[in-house]
């Protein structure tokens, strides 16, 4: 039984075949990257995993359990967290509050207890803060802890989004273009963190990325997509030298 399996996934929006017959497996503890030109269907695969859309056909299994067909909010409970290509943070809340929302799946208290803020709620709140603080330390966000997200620079927001996802305590982390919009320095930090996710935290990473140097640096395996279809699957080097992949990116070479 593999850790994560996508089986013959397809989805169509009206006439657009966004994803067609895509199958792949992700092993526990690896960094698996999906690449492909714009509109290849990479984000759509993430949306299928998040159960935002039901697939037209195919299924998704996580730790041996089929997740397609579950209610979308259940995905987080299973231990799958994601970031979004166009940052989706809780803008009018502080960084800390954003991370605390990430602790939602660890909620232990009932509504009536919360209304009275009874001791169990206080204890749980302190525990949530400790967990959030660990992630803040890990990603060097101390400086921004109490800032409102809406005012933060793009690069920081990107890190906050990763932090929020990590606070959920995921087993599988989906990253949609983690380095897009970052400067080389921030991008380098991101690469380090992705490596640490895998090495130190033991989190499996499924990532979409355009920056090929980052991809080669952190990925164990790479899947190339074009127009919703699988082109090649293998190590970063194998995929990059595959003639069909080169053709998809550069057009047909005569």
């Amino acid at each position, binding site marked *: 039984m593999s850790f994560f399996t996508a089986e013959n996934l397809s989805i169509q929006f009206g006439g657009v075949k966004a994803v067609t017959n895509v199958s792949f497996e992700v092993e526990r503890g690896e960094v698996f990257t999906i690449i492909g030109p714009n509109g290849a269907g990479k984000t759509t695969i993430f949306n299928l995993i*998040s159960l935002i859309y039901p697939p037209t056909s195919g299924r998704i299994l996580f730790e041996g359990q089929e997740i397609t067909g579950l209610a979308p909010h259940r995905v987080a409970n299973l231990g799958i967290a994601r970031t979004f290509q166009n940052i989706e943070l809780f803008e009018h809340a502080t960084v800390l509050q954003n991370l605390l*929302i990430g602790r939602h799946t660890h909620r232990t208290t009932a*509504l009536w207890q919360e209304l009275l803020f009874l001791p169990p709620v*206080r204890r749980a*709140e302190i525990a949530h803060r400790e967990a959030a603080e660990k992630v803040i330390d890990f990603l060097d966000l101390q400086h921004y802890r109490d800032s409102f997200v809406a005012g933060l620079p793009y690069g920081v927001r990107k890190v906050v989004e990763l932090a*929020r996802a990590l606070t959920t305590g995921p087993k599988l982390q989906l990253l949609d273009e983690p380095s897009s919009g970052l400067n080389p320095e921030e991008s380098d930090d991101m690469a380090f963190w992705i490596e640490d996710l895998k090495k130190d935290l033991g989190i499996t990473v499924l990532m979409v990325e355009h920056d090929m140097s980052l991809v080669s640096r952190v990925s164990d395996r790479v899947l190339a997509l074009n127009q919703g279809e699988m082109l090649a699957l293998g190590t970063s080097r194998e995929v990059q030298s595959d003639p069909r992949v080169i053709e998809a990116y550069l057009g047909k070479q005569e």
Partner: protein
Amino acid sequence: MRFYFKTDYAQDVRLFQDGVQVFWYVALAAALLALPVLLPEYLIGQMVFILIYCIIGAGMMLLIGYTGQISLGHAAFLAVGAYTEALLQARGVPFAVSLSAAALLSGVAGFIIGMPALRLKGIYLAIATMAFGFIVEEVITRWEHVTGGNSGKQLKQIDFFGIAIDNDARFYYLCLGLVAVIFLGMINLMRSPTGRAFVAIRDSEISAQSMGIHLARYKTISFAISAALTGVAGALYAHKVQFISPEQFNLLVSIEMATLVFIGGLGSFHGAVFGAAFIIALPQVIVFMKDYLPTAIAQQTGLQPTIFGLILIAFLIFEPLGIYGRWVKIRTYFSLFPFYRGGMFRRQKAYMKSDRLK
């Protein structure tokens, strides 16, 4: 501006940040308790209305300001609370029980309406709640043998565990106690997982969902709590005015309840209080102003809606954070004096978030 140095997490979880804040809240409580001695009877009566509107404001703030769900039909819950109270009191049910029943019944009504309605977003939700409001208004007009139809229902004074609430000062203390309990509960809720889930839904449904938040469940909870609070306010309101009839719960009342939070300041319970005070004080101020205006203008019934509309528009354009936002700025100005610089609160240019698929 004071800086809070945090040394441990318990500090974050505390109700008040520091001694200074405790001092001001104690002072406020003392002033509120002394008010009936200081103010004439008429103004105490107005204070009662403000307190009742504070409860409405807390409910609307929870729903609109914190959960980001609009309602233009909340007068219906006010009606459910008011009529429940009227009917139960007429049957001799004690006040504590009838008030709880008013809260419960409106909460359940909110829950039932909320479930289907909250699959809807933005303008659709506004229209659905508005439609619900119209239907409830019509039902209480037509269901004459229960509600008395257009001839309305009379209420007697409250008997609160043997104490007759027979003057405005007593009514004021009763409302003040309820407001304190309700606001404490709401503030507790907002510093707990449920409250944070509301904020998450307000700011991004899609990522709230990816954090494991069951959107429909939390929206429904928010709607139900807000309806229950409105029901409590309705019961108190019914006693305050002593006579209820369908037109006291029409669309304009629902709209007024929603504007309360926009004028007070979205996303803070302070805003709910400021909004409540504004809604009650404005007509009084206008009446007062009339003595100084030329009679040709002062006699006009259109004066009040015009001024109300203009103030609403002005706030939305110039001070989107409402009265509370203004207050924070003024407070910061004085605490930093003379170091305040212009542009300190310059508005963050928000990205235009379209509901459409581009």
